[in-house]
């Protein structure tokens, strides 16, 4: 069966510090991978998606970036965090284009 992991589960970082969030998927090959941010328990904002290794599409211009160095690994990064980067970050995978499976999320607080 397929599983998706995200870490860390929670993170508190000062403004201006770097960020690296990691997501890995097991049990499937060549999935589409996604990074979302969710603020205040509301809807999901798609940040990046990837249909293959080193193929990244950015949905929202911001100070975040994403990379996919391996088929089942997706990394979200920032060189300098802003207060507005606080939120709940979710990684998801899909094989069928219309069904996504989410990880447990990372709660990021920028202070």
């Amino acid at each position, binding site marked *: 069966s397929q599983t998706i992991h995200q870490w860390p589960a929670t993170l508190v970082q000062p403004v201006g510090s770097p960020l690296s969030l990691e997501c890995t998927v097991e049990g499937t090959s060549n999935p*589409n991978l*996604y990074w979302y941010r969710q603020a205040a*328990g*509301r*809807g*999901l904002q*798609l940040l990046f*998606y990837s*249909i293959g290794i080193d193929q990244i*599409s950015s*949905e929202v211009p911001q100070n975040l970036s994403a990379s996919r160095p391996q088929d089942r690994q997706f990394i979200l990064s920032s060189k300098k965090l802003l207060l507005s980067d606080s939120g709940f970050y*979710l990684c*998801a995978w899909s094989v069928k*284009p*219309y*069904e*996504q*499976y*989410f*990880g*447990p*999320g990372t*709660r990021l607080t920028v202070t």
Partner: protein
Amino acid sequence: TQLLEQSPQFLSIQEGENLTVYCNSSSVFSSLQWYRQEPGEGPVLLVTVVTGGEVKKLKRLTFQFGDARKDSSLHITAAQPGDTGLYLCAVQGAQKLVFGQGTRLTINP
């Protein structure tokens, strides 16, 4: 303007009551998904509907896709505290899903 409009945004009812939440759009979709997200966790796929007029049941949850494939509803019978969460509808875009803003449902014991 949101592609998907979910209503109501918030709903708080007593255990045992019935409820319906809605997902509406002016666009036609080939499929629509419903997800439930509990606090502090990722959303979980509940159902996918693909045919206009389709009705799917998942225990006490009934999902319906509109005849014109522009809207959907989720009806919960005899709501329980375990139904509490954020209910999200989503439709397929190019290589990605487009989500509504969700309905936050609270079931009070």
